[in-house]
Protein backbone atom coordinates (compact mmCIF):
# COMPACT_ATOMS: atom_id res chain seq x y z
CA UNK A 1 0.00 0.00 0.00
CA UNK A 2 1.23 3.39 -0.86
CA UNK A 3 1.86 5.58 2.15
CA UNK A 4 -0.91 7.99 2.91
CA UNK A 5 -3.57 5.67 1.56
CA UNK A 6 -5.94 3.27 3.16
CA UNK A 7 -7.55 0.22 1.71
CA UNK A 8 -11.26 0.77 1.17
CA UNK A 9 -12.27 -2.18 -0.98
CA UNK A 10 -10.75 -5.60 -1.12
CA UNK A 11 -11.65 -9.11 -2.11
CA UNK A 12 -13.38 -10.76 0.86
CA UNK A 13 -11.27 -13.43 2.44
CA UNK A 14 -14.22 -15.76 2.63
CA UNK A 15 -14.04 -15.86 -1.16
CA UNK A 16 -11.23 -18.34 -1.50
CA UNK A 17 -8.14 -17.11 -3.34
CA UNK A 18 -8.83 -19.23 -6.39
CA UNK A 19 -9.52 -18.35 -9.95
CA UNK A 20 -13.23 -18.87 -10.56
CA UNK A 21 -14.09 -20.91 -13.63
CA UNK A 22 -16.75 -18.50 -14.81
CA UNK A 23 -16.39 -16.79 -18.16
CA UNK A 24 -15.08 -13.23 -18.22
CA UNK A 25 -17.72 -10.76 -17.11
CA UNK A 26 -20.15 -13.35 -15.82
CA UNK A 27 -22.30 -12.15 -12.94
CA UNK A 28 -22.09 -15.51 -11.23
CA UNK A 29 -18.71 -14.29 -10.02
CA UNK A 30 -20.16 -10.96 -8.97
CA UNK A 31 -22.87 -12.56 -6.87
CA UNK A 32 -20.42 -14.95 -5.28
CA UNK A 33 -18.33 -11.98 -4.31
CA UNK A 34 -21.28 -10.09 -2.88
CA UNK A 35 -22.44 -13.01 -0.77
CA UNK A 36 -18.97 -13.49 0.62
CA UNK A 37 -18.66 -9.80 1.37
CA UNK A 38 -21.73 -10.10 3.53
CA UNK A 39 -20.43 -13.24 5.20
CA UNK A 40 -17.17 -11.50 5.96
CA UNK A 41 -18.64 -8.20 7.06
CA UNK A 42 -21.22 -9.84 9.28
CA UNK A 43 -18.74 -12.45 10.49
CA UNK A 44 -21.23 -15.26 9.95
CA UNK A 45 -19.07 -17.88 8.30
CA UNK A 46 -20.16 -20.40 10.92
CA UNK A 47 -23.82 -19.54 10.44
CA UNK A 48 -24.23 -19.72 6.70
CA UNK A 49 -24.85 -22.88 4.72
CA UNK A 50 -25.21 -22.72 0.97
CA UNK A 51 -26.72 -25.03 -1.60
CA UNK A 52 -25.30 -25.10 -5.14
CA UNK A 53 -27.47 -25.97 -8.10
CA UNK A 54 -26.57 -27.83 -11.23
CA UNK A 55 -25.68 -25.09 -13.64
CA UNK A 56 -22.55 -23.05 -14.20
CA UNK A 57 -22.47 -22.33 -10.49
CA UNK A 58 -22.33 -26.02 -9.66
CA UNK A 59 -18.76 -25.46 -8.50
CA UNK A 60 -19.62 -22.53 -6.24
CA UNK A 61 -18.39 -24.55 -3.29
CA UNK A 62 -14.90 -24.36 -4.73
CA UNK A 63 -14.86 -20.65 -4.02
CA UNK A 64 -17.12 -19.88 -1.10
CA UNK A 65 -15.44 -20.67 2.18
CA UNK A 66 -18.54 -21.93 3.95
CA UNK A 67 -20.23 -25.30 4.36
CA UNK A 68 -22.02 -26.17 1.16
CA UNK A 69 -23.98 -28.89 -0.50
CA UNK A 70 -24.39 -29.64 -4.16
CA UNK A 71 -28.03 -30.36 -5.03
CA UNK A 72 -29.45 -32.37 -7.89
CA UNK A 73 -30.59 -30.28 -10.84
CA UNK A 74 -33.64 -28.32 -9.77
CA UNK A 75 -33.81 -29.65 -6.23
CA UNK A 76 -31.83 -27.00 -4.40
CA UNK A 77 -34.98 -25.71 -2.74
CA UNK A 78 -35.79 -29.16 -1.37
CA UNK A 79 -32.21 -29.60 -0.20
CA UNK A 80 -32.21 -26.19 1.46
CA UNK A 81 -35.51 -27.08 3.11
CA UNK A 82 -33.94 -30.23 4.52
CA UNK A 83 -30.96 -28.35 5.89
CA UNK A 84 -32.86 -25.40 7.30
CA UNK A 85 -35.44 -27.54 9.04
CA UNK A 86 -32.68 -29.49 10.75
CA UNK A 87 -30.67 -26.39 11.60
CA UNK A 88 -33.22 -23.62 12.09
CA UNK A 89 -30.66 -21.23 13.58
CA UNK A 90 -28.46 -21.17 10.53
CA UNK A 91 -28.76 -18.88 7.55
CA UNK A 92 -29.39 -21.11 4.57
CA UNK A 93 -29.47 -20.06 0.96
CA UNK A 94 -30.00 -21.85 -2.29
CA UNK A 95 -28.19 -20.45 -5.29
CA UNK A 96 -29.92 -21.40 -8.51
CA UNK A 97 -29.99 -20.68 -12.19
CA UNK A 98 -33.10 -20.18 -14.26
CA UNK A 99 -33.03 -23.67 -15.71
CA UNK A 100 -32.60 -25.05 -12.25
CA UNK A 101 -35.14 -22.94 -10.38
CA UNK A 102 -37.69 -22.10 -13.04
CA UNK A 103 -37.72 -25.20 -15.25
CA UNK A 104 -36.92 -28.56 -13.71
CA UNK A 105 -37.20 -27.24 -10.15
CA UNK A 106 -40.48 -25.37 -10.51
CA UNK A 107 -42.43 -27.59 -8.11
CA UNK A 108 -39.75 -27.46 -5.44
CA UNK A 109 -39.45 -23.70 -5.82
CA UNK A 110 -43.17 -23.03 -5.65
CA UNK A 111 -43.74 -25.33 -2.70
CA UNK A 112 -40.78 -24.21 -0.63
CA UNK A 113 -42.15 -20.69 -1.14
CA UNK A 114 -45.70 -21.76 -0.42
CA UNK A 115 -44.69 -23.40 2.84
CA UNK A 116 -42.76 -20.26 3.66
CA UNK A 117 -39.53 -22.19 4.11
CA UNK A 118 -37.31 -19.87 5.96
CA UNK A 119 -34.30 -19.73 3.67
CA UNK A 120 -33.14 -17.38 0.93
CA UNK A 121 -33.38 -18.11 -2.75
CA UNK A 122 -30.69 -16.44 -4.80
CA UNK A 123 -31.99 -16.86 -8.31
CA UNK A 124 -29.61 -16.10 -11.15
CA UNK A 125 -31.75 -15.42 -14.16
CA UNK A 126 -29.56 -15.20 -17.23
CA UNK A 127 -32.24 -16.34 -19.63
CA UNK A 128 -30.30 -19.35 -20.77
CA UNK A 129 -28.83 -22.68 -19.79
CA UNK A 130 -25.25 -21.57 -19.36
CA UNK A 131 -23.59 -24.75 -18.26
CA UNK A 132 -24.92 -27.04 -20.95
CA UNK A 133 -23.98 -24.65 -23.69
CA UNK A 134 -26.73 -22.18 -24.27
CA UNK A 135 -30.11 -23.84 -24.59
CA UNK A 136 -33.38 -21.99 -24.14
CA UNK A 137 -34.49 -21.39 -20.56
CA UNK A 138 -38.05 -20.67 -19.41
CA UNK A 139 -36.86 -17.08 -19.00
CA UNK A 140 -35.33 -16.73 -22.46
CA UNK A 141 -36.77 -13.62 -24.05
CA UNK A 142 -39.19 -13.65 -26.93
CA UNK A 143 -37.28 -13.96 -30.17
CA UNK A 144 -33.99 -14.65 -28.42
CA UNK A 145 -31.76 -17.11 -30.22
CA UNK A 146 -30.36 -20.05 -28.31
CA UNK A 147 -29.13 -23.45 -29.41
CA UNK A 148 -32.61 -24.90 -28.93
CA UNK A 149 -34.40 -21.86 -30.28
CA UNK A 150 -32.04 -21.27 -33.17
CA UNK A 151 -34.58 -19.14 -34.98
CA UNK A 152 -35.53 -17.16 -31.89
CA UNK A 153 -37.87 -18.13 -29.07
CA UNK A 154 -41.34 -18.56 -30.49
CA UNK A 155 -44.09 -17.76 -27.96
CA UNK A 156 -46.68 -19.69 -29.95
CA UNK A 157 -45.02 -23.00 -29.15
CA UNK A 158 -42.78 -22.24 -26.18
CA UNK A 159 -44.75 -19.57 -24.36
CA UNK A 160 -43.47 -16.34 -22.94
CA UNK A 161 -40.61 -15.96 -20.46
CA UNK A 162 -41.79 -16.84 -16.98
CA UNK A 163 -41.62 -14.17 -14.30
CA UNK A 164 -40.70 -15.99 -11.17
CA UNK A 165 -40.51 -13.03 -8.82
CA UNK A 166 -44.00 -11.97 -9.76
CA UNK A 167 -45.22 -15.54 -9.41
CA UNK A 168 -43.79 -16.34 -6.00
CA UNK A 169 -44.90 -12.95 -4.69
CA UNK A 170 -48.42 -14.34 -4.95
CA UNK A 171 -47.70 -16.94 -2.31
CA UNK A 172 -48.80 -15.84 1.11
CA UNK A 173 -45.92 -17.25 3.14
CA UNK A 174 -43.28 -15.58 1.04
CA UNK A 175 -41.87 -12.67 3.00
CA UNK A 176 -39.62 -10.80 0.67
CA UNK A 177 -39.11 -10.74 -3.08
CA UNK A 178 -36.83 -8.38 -4.92
CA UNK A 179 -35.45 -8.39 -8.43
CA UNK A 180 -31.98 -6.88 -8.79
CA UNK A 181 -29.17 -6.84 -11.30
CA UNK A 182 -25.43 -6.23 -11.40
CA UNK A 183 -25.33 -4.29 -14.63
CA UNK A 184 -24.25 -1.04 -13.01
CA UNK A 185 -22.37 -0.18 -9.85
CA UNK A 186 -25.55 1.24 -8.33
CA UNK A 187 -27.54 -1.89 -9.12
CA UNK A 188 -24.77 -4.07 -7.81
CA UNK A 189 -24.85 -2.18 -4.54
CA UNK A 190 -28.60 -2.69 -4.44
CA UNK A 191 -28.19 -6.36 -5.11
CA UNK A 192 -25.97 -6.63 -2.09
CA UNK A 193 -28.42 -4.74 0.08
CA UNK A 194 -31.19 -7.03 -1.11
CA UNK A 195 -29.32 -10.14 -0.08
CA UNK A 196 -28.46 -8.55 3.24
CA UNK A 197 -32.09 -7.76 3.79
CA UNK A 198 -33.09 -11.28 2.84
CA UNK A 199 -30.65 -12.74 5.36
CA UNK A 200 -31.99 -10.38 8.01
CA UNK A 201 -35.55 -11.39 7.33
CA UNK A 202 -34.51 -15.01 7.37
CA UNK A 203 -32.88 -14.56 10.75
CA UNK A 204 -36.15 -13.12 12.03
CA UNK A 205 -37.95 -16.19 10.74
CA UNK A 206 -40.45 -14.20 8.73
CA UNK A 207 -40.75 -16.56 5.78
CA UNK A 208 -39.24 -17.23 2.42
CA UNK A 209 -36.93 -14.64 0.94
CA UNK A 210 -36.37 -14.58 -2.79
CA UNK A 211 -33.80 -12.49 -4.64
CA UNK A 212 -33.84 -12.67 -8.41
CA UNK A 213 -30.74 -11.38 -10.15
CA UNK A 214 -31.15 -10.43 -13.78
CA UNK A 215 -27.86 -11.87 -14.88
CA UNK A 216 -25.86 -12.38 -18.04
CA UNK A 217 -24.15 -15.06 -20.04
CA UNK A 218 -21.77 -13.41 -22.46
CA UNK A 219 -20.52 -16.77 -23.70
CA UNK A 220 -23.85 -18.19 -24.70
CA UNK A 221 -25.42 -14.90 -25.61
CA UNK A 222 -22.45 -14.75 -27.96
CA UNK A 223 -21.44 -11.26 -27.07
CA UNK A 224 -18.86 -9.38 -25.04
CA UNK A 225 -19.46 -8.72 -21.37
CA UNK A 226 -19.99 -5.10 -22.28
CA UNK A 227 -22.64 -5.98 -24.83
CA UNK A 228 -24.27 -8.22 -22.28
CA UNK A 229 -24.87 -5.16 -20.11
CA UNK A 230 -26.52 -3.48 -23.07
CA UNK A 231 -28.76 -6.49 -23.60
CA UNK A 232 -29.78 -6.45 -19.97
CA UNK A 233 -30.63 -2.80 -20.12
CA UNK A 234 -32.34 -2.81 -23.48
CA UNK A 235 -34.03 -6.18 -23.53
CA UNK A 236 -34.09 -7.94 -20.21
CA UNK A 237 -35.01 -5.20 -17.75
CA UNK A 238 -38.01 -3.91 -19.68
CA UNK A 239 -39.48 -7.40 -19.40
CA UNK A 240 -38.05 -8.23 -15.98
CA UNK A 241 -38.34 -4.92 -14.14
CA UNK A 242 -36.20 -4.44 -11.08
CA UNK A 243 -37.71 -3.67 -7.72
CA UNK A 244 -39.27 -4.99 -4.58
CA UNK A 245 -42.31 -7.17 -5.20
CA UNK A 246 -43.07 -7.97 -1.64
CA UNK A 247 -41.59 -7.17 1.73
CA UNK A 248 -42.53 -7.37 5.37
CA UNK A 249 -43.51 -4.28 7.27
CA UNK A 250 -40.45 -2.33 8.32
CA UNK A 251 -41.07 -2.85 12.04
CA UNK A 252 -40.96 -6.59 11.55
CA UNK A 253 -37.52 -6.52 9.96
CA UNK A 254 -35.76 -4.12 12.29
Amino acid at each position, binding site marked *: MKPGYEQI*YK*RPETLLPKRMHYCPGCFH*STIHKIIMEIVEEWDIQDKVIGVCPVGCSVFAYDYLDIDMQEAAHGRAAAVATGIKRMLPDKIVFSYQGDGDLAAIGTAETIHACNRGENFTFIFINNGIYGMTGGQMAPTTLEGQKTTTSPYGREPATTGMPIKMSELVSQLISVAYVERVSCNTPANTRKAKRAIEKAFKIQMKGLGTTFIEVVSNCPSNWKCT*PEESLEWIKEKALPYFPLGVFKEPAKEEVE
Partner: protein
Amino acid sequence: MPAKGYVEISIETCKGCNLCVIHCPTKCLALNTSDTNSYGLHYAYMVDEDECIACQNCAIMCPDAAITVFKKVS
Protein backbone atom coordinates in the same frame (compact mmCIF):
# COMPACT_ATOMS: atom_id res chain seq x y z
CA MET B 1 -1.42 16.75 -6.36
CA PRO B 2 -1.45 13.07 -5.51
CA ALA B 3 -4.51 11.25 -6.74
CA LYS B 4 -7.46 10.67 -4.41
CA GLY B 5 -7.06 7.00 -4.84
CA TYR B 6 -5.59 4.17 -6.75
CA VAL B 7 -6.36 0.53 -7.46
CA GLU B 8 -4.39 -2.68 -7.63
CA ILE B 9 -5.49 -5.32 -10.07
CA SER B 10 -4.44 -8.93 -9.80
CA ILE B 11 -3.20 -9.83 -13.25
CA GLU B 12 -3.83 -13.54 -12.97
CA THR B 13 -7.27 -13.08 -11.45
CA CYS B 14 -8.37 -10.58 -14.04
CA LYS B 15 -10.25 -12.04 -16.98
CA GLY B 16 -10.17 -8.95 -19.13
CA CYS B 17 -13.90 -8.54 -19.15
CA ASN B 18 -13.58 -4.78 -19.42
CA LEU B 19 -16.40 -4.08 -17.00
CA CYS B 20 -14.17 -2.06 -14.71
CA VAL B 21 -12.85 -0.08 -17.63
CA ILE B 22 -16.22 1.02 -18.90
CA HIS B 23 -17.47 1.90 -15.44
CA CYS B 24 -14.57 4.04 -14.34
CA PRO B 25 -15.93 7.57 -14.28
CA THR B 26 -12.48 9.04 -14.79
CA LYS B 27 -11.32 6.64 -17.46
CA CYS B 28 -8.18 5.68 -15.66
CA LEU B 29 -8.39 1.96 -16.46
CA ALA B 30 -7.75 0.01 -19.66
CA LEU B 31 -7.08 -3.48 -20.86
CA ASN B 32 -3.52 -4.26 -21.68
CA THR B 33 -3.93 -5.25 -25.31
CA SER B 34 -0.29 -6.02 -25.80
CA ASP B 35 0.10 -8.56 -23.07
CA THR B 36 -1.88 -11.48 -21.71
CA ASN B 37 -1.82 -13.29 -18.44
CA SER B 38 -1.17 -17.01 -18.36
CA TYR B 39 -4.76 -17.70 -19.33
CA GLY B 40 -4.28 -15.81 -22.57
CA LEU B 41 -6.39 -12.88 -21.43
CA HIS B 42 -5.70 -9.17 -21.73
CA TYR B 43 -5.80 -7.95 -18.18
CA ALA B 44 -6.85 -4.53 -16.91
CA TYR B 45 -4.46 -2.01 -15.46
CA MET B 46 -4.31 1.67 -14.49
CA VAL B 47 -3.54 3.77 -17.54
CA ASP B 48 -3.91 6.99 -15.71
CA GLU B 49 -2.71 6.91 -12.14
CA ASP B 50 -3.66 10.47 -11.43
CA GLU B 51 -7.36 10.48 -12.05
CA CYS B 52 -8.60 7.83 -9.69
CA ILE B 53 -11.16 9.18 -7.27
CA ALA B 54 -11.46 5.97 -5.27
CA CYS B 55 -15.12 5.66 -6.15
CA GLN B 56 -14.92 1.84 -6.10
CA ASN B 57 -17.07 1.49 -9.19
CA CYS B 58 -14.46 -0.66 -10.86
CA ALA B 59 -14.12 -2.94 -7.87
CA ILE B 60 -17.82 -3.30 -7.40
CA MET B 61 -18.27 -4.20 -11.03
CA CYS B 62 -15.34 -6.57 -11.13
CA PRO B 63 -16.93 -10.01 -11.09
CA ASP B 64 -13.74 -11.71 -10.12
CA ALA B 65 -12.79 -9.50 -7.21
CA ALA B 66 -9.52 -8.75 -8.87
CA ILE B 67 -9.43 -5.12 -7.78
CA THR B 68 -8.35 -3.59 -4.49
CA VAL B 69 -9.11 0.09 -3.98
CA PHE B 70 -7.08 2.50 -1.91
CA LYS B 71 -8.08 5.97 -0.84
CA LYS B 72 -6.01 8.87 0.25
CA VAL B 73 -6.25 9.32 3.99
CA SER B 74 -7.70 12.75 4.51
